[in-house]
């Protein structure tokens, strides 16, 4: 049964805004309430959309009133910050993520109308280490202890969500663990990373990276909101790219940095405002992370339209490469003709 009134938190971010707008086009849904502490830009959420925007912080008690007065039956929690820079420092990021989630869940627990909860979580909860299995399934726990940051926040958020689920077992819960987002319009950790002209990598390491196209992410969120899937599910594109391979495909130049210097480089980039990478995101560059998506395909019933490689190619198509692949091919052709005295005219393909 489709929901009647949906509350989407974090509606001023790309995915939140897109989801609210998409839900608003569904005639079965009577009302879509979007919540955020800042007003969404007009291109993200046009005034013509029937999304009702409520400017509030999820830590504000007002939220309980919003839920009860609008008789919200489905809550989509997406107001989870990934990096300290955008949240105004690590302390306020943690405050917003963890305390915000607690407050939101407390409000949901009080509201009798709520019967479905969708939480946008992350595969960061599996950590990233040399002791990781090649692919994480939903039952697995992180091998390495998460010390701080987004990963720790996410683990705590999932803990509170499970606690809520125990107290309100009649509320169905979809806990979506997303891999890294990529695409032509989304602003994510990876899109920022791959847009740097010189892309830092960790010397001697080549992480396996799994990506999810923004359209697939949106579709999974929409299906989770209107559907009835109950449980935890990994959401990621099929297949992987190696970090070095992805940088090459994007036409960027990789720069290897010795592991001990990576943290200080990350700090330098943050201070100069070039890029904002948290320590666990830098650790991710060491080992990467890949998850098993069998449950997404079979139980949740969605197969992402883009594989990791296709999603990345779509992102690259909208980027200006530093090194154009066509130029490399041109150089190859010239070298080949010169070395073989024109006996071979065209490069061979495997």
């Amino acid at each position, binding site marked *: 049964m489709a929901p009647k009134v949906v509350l989407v938190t974090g509606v001023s971010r790309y995915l939140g805004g897109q989801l609210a707008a998409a839900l608003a086009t569904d005639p079965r849904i009577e009302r879509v309430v979007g919540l955020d502490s800042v007003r969404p830009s007009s291109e993200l959420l046009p005034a013509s959309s029937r999304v009702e925007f409520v400017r509030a912080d999820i830590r504000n008690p007002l939220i309980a009133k919003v839920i009860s007065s609008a008789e919200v039956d489905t809550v989509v929690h997406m107001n989870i910050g990934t990096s300290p820079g955008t949240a105004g420092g690590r302390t306020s990021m943690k405050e917003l993520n963890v305390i915000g989630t607690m407050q939101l869940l407390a409000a949901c627990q009080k509201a009798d109308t709520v019967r479905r909860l969708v939480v946008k979580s992350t595969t960061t909860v599996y950590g990233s280490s*040399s002791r990781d*299995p090649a692919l994480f399934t939903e039952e697995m726990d992180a091998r390495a202890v998460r010390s701080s940051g987004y990963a720790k926040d996410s683990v705590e958020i999932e803990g509170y969500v499970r606690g809520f689920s125990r107290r309100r077992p009649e509320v169905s819960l979809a806990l979506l663990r997303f891999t890294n987002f990529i695409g032509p319009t989304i602003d994510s950790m990876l899109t920022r990373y791959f847009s740097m002209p010189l892309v830092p990598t960790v010397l001697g390491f080549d992480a396996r990276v799994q990506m999810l196209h923004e359209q697939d992410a949106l579709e999974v969120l929409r299906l989770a909101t209107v559907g009835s899937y109950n449980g935890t599910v990994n959401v990621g594109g099929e297949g992987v790219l190696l970090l*070095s391979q992805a940088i090459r495909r994007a036409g960027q130049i990789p720069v290897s940095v010795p592991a001990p210097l990576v943290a200080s480089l990350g700090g330098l980039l943050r201070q100069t405002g070039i890029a904002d990478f948290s320590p666990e995101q830098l650790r991710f560059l060491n080992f990467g992370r890949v998850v098993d998506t069998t449950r997404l395909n079979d139980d949740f019933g969605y197969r992402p339209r883009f594989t990791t490689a296709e999603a990345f190619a779509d992102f690259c198509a909208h980027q200006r490469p530093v*090194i154009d*692949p066509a130029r*490399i091919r041109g150089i190859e052709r010239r*070298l*080949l003709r010169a070395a073989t005295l024109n006996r071979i005219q065209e*490069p*061979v393909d495997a």
Partner: protein
Amino acid sequence: MPEARVIPMPAPPQAEPTPESSTAEAEWDQRLAQALAFLRRRLTGEYEVDEFGFDEDFTDRVYLPALRPLYKSWFRVETFGMHNIPDTGGALVVANHSGTVPMDGLMTALAVHDEHPARRRLRLLGADLVFKLPLVGSIARKTGNTLACNADAERLLETGELVGVYPEGFKGVGKPFADRYKLQRFGRGGFVSAAIRTGVPIIPCSIVGAEEIYPMIGNLKGLARVLGVPYLPVTPTFPLLGPLGLIPLPSKWLIEFGEPIPTAHLGPAAADDPMLVFNLTDEIRETIQQSLYSLLMQRGSVFS
């Protein structure tokens, strides 16, 4: 008797009879074109890797060719019982581990690829230390290996891959020279339960020769602990001769693949029967130990 049929003659080769110099030239041209194409693929990232990070292009064009001289000329590896490895489908190769540096894994993988008629890939399971080390870890993944854990082993076996495992682990590869060819404890039998759960046969593999490449006569335990490695070897040439001590001794290698031990008839539930798993583990260990002794008899002298 079947009726006589007209069998078309194979068409004569198209190529004109050419002088030897020009065919050699054409071959050289082809090689150059291939090498340039490989370089271009590296620079543009136009190659494929599987979920485990296995990069066939790199493995076939850089990694295996680099190991071949060592395999053919230095260790003069001879293999036996290659027919015991199936042409298709999952199977678990279980081998003894030795040599201070796990060269035996690399050589076994090359042996299976080059000498098995189906040119199968042996996907090795490595210790977590391997994947922690810079360069070593990333090369290990690119060449098709993964972490020794049940999740990865079962995932590979389920998809019909040939998986190689060294259950002795560091106890085997880092044992003193005096203990050569004495099998150590076979872990906790995790490999056996992985095979049972996926119903694949276990192929015992005995490797003679790896024990002598870096004879470990001492172990700097204190320094090893400081560096966070399981052992720090002293060999007759290392650290005495410095980097020269890193050259392995040219021992003669014999690798034998034994009769497959089927597990499909046991059913997946048997993986949770510890007694059965222990017994099967012991049986495999005993088989490998016996075949090591007979291979040693067969080899005669170490450097023959």
